């Protein structure tokens, strides 16, 4: 069999084409200057080769005009690179609001992936084509990095915090997933596949292996099982703040700051509740660090996010207020 020699990676995400255009621009600039320097050196070296051991060239001491020109012009070109690259980077850091959330937990040496509908995958990620997908990622041990070359994107996956990465697949297919940050012995085996599917195929895939419960339902079980509703009452009458509608809202803290309740805040408040105390409440909550795994935490986070959705009436009504909340069927929506 002929060995394959592909020289250009497949482009399968909305941003991939932009990155390739930037790459092309960089390549053209680099090629121009490389040819310029190589060509000039070759030409000068041949043209002005030493013909006699006693020849003494005329001295030039340099010229300020030239120095300024060849400082300013390259700098101007690099500023184009900067702005172009920064623009892409900024886009890559802003997932759209309607992005499909998926959770990723990395550990030596596997990727554990969980969909909000409850499907779990290992080293495989199924996503629909044409819809932005937002990964919320953390690690159970060392630093990993979630890298999909065909999507031209990666982000480190760091223990102790959430990082996010988003992309919109544009072409159905099977794409490499690599761990890009060295993570120990079997680093090069921490790989997998991303399956981008037509929305209908994706729906079929979701339905083909229906899990017993959604992430929010699992989160709800954990929430109740650990006794959280004793204080976190949905009407805010408990000793602790209500979690309904918390996600995405502004939280006023006891120390006067106001912060956005994002996933990282929820995670921190479960594991290290004392880090940020909500104004008007005491520091009563015990830490759950060591008692829940990162996979548990993402389910709790998803549950709290779901509570937010519920308050906006996006999903069927939950149980009556004051009782432990139960999760309605989400899968059919």
């Amino acid at each position, binding site marked *: 069999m002929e060995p394959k020699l592909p020289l250009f990676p497949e482009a399968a995400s909305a941003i991939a084409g932009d990155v390739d255009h930037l790459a092309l621009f960089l390549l053209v600039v680099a090629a121009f200057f490389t040819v310029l320097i190589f060509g000039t050196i070759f030409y000068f070296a041949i043209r002005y080769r030493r013909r006699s051991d006693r020849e003494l060239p005329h001295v030039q001491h340099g010229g300020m005009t030239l120095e300024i020109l060849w400082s300013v012009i390259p700098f101007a070109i690099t500023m184009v690179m900067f702005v172009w690259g920064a623009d892409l980077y900024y886009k890559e850091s802003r997932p759209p609001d309607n992005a499909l959330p998926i959770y990723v937990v990395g550990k030596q040496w596997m990727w554990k992936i969980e969909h909000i509908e409850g499907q779990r995958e290992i080293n495989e990620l199924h996503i629909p084509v044409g819809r932005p997908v937002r990964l919320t990622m953390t690690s159970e041990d060392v630093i990993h990095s979630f890298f999909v070359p065909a999507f031209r994107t990666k982000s480190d996956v760091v223990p102790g915090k959430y990082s996010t990465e988003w992309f919109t697949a544009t072409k159905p297919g099977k794409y490499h997933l690599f761990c890009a940050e060295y993570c120990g012995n079997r680093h090069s085996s921490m790989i997998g596949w991303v399956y981008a599917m037509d929305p209908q195929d994706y729906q079929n895939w979701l339905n083909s292996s229906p899990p017993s419960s959604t992430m929010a339902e699992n989160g709800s079980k954990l929430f109740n099982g650990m006794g959280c509703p004793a204080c976190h009452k949905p009407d805010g009458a408990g000793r602790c703040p209500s979690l309904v509608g918390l996600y995405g809202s502004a939280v006023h803290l006891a120390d006067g700051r106001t912060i956005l309740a994002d996933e990282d805040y929820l995670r921190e408040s479960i*594991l290290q509740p*004392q880090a940020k105390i909500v104004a008007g409440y005491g520091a009563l909550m*015990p830490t759950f660090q060591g008692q829940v795994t990162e996979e548990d935490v993402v389910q709790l986070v998803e549950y709290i996010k779901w509570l937010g959705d519920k308050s906006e009436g996006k999903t069927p009504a939950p149980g009556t207020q004051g009782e432990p909340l139960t999760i309605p069927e989400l899968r059919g929506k």
Partner: protein
Amino acid sequence: MASDTHVPAHQETLALREQFDTAAQQKDASTFGMWIFLITEVMFFGGLFLAYTVYRHLYPDVFDVASSSLNVYIGAANTVVLLCSSLTMVLAVRASQLGQKQMIVLFLVLTLMLGFVFLGVKGYEWTVKFQEHHVPGMGFHLEGLTPDNAVTQGHAQLFFSLYFAMTGLHAFHMVIGAGLLMYLIFEARKGRYSAEYNTPVDLIGLYWHFVDIIWIFLFPLLYLIDRHLGR
């Protein structure tokens, strides 16, 4: 050229090393070298100060509580001791410039003794910390944290890690300084230093003051966190 003339051994102290042309150049180079060395030391401690800044910013409340477990009065007293030792060091340098050979020895001995007092007090403070289980990784527990749990204890442990790293490295520099002072005293007793040749006294003086200054930064950062005016 000076390089060709052999200097008898007993005049070693006045000797011009062969790479230099003049005694002034030699002294100048040595002093300059010492300053550069002190700059490297600033960068060295700078890394620790950075780590301190990051974590104090992240966990201000725990750092408050942890800081107040240190004994301010002992720390302040030790600061005074160290400042006095800087004074006696300056007096030793002055004496060497004036060629007062007895006085050099006297002031160096005083400096050394004050240095030992500082180290002794530091050792006492560490022993107390040991007894109070404030040493990271050795059954660590700090009282008075609200709330008191594994997470805040971890943050308090960070404070004490930085405390021991910073005061430990500072003390290590003091021990080296004490060794250098002993060398100076030994040489000074033999009358090596005079108005013409006193570079070592000068350089070690610079080093001693540097170690002193580091402490001047460490003391408020570690001991006085929760002692803002008006609290």
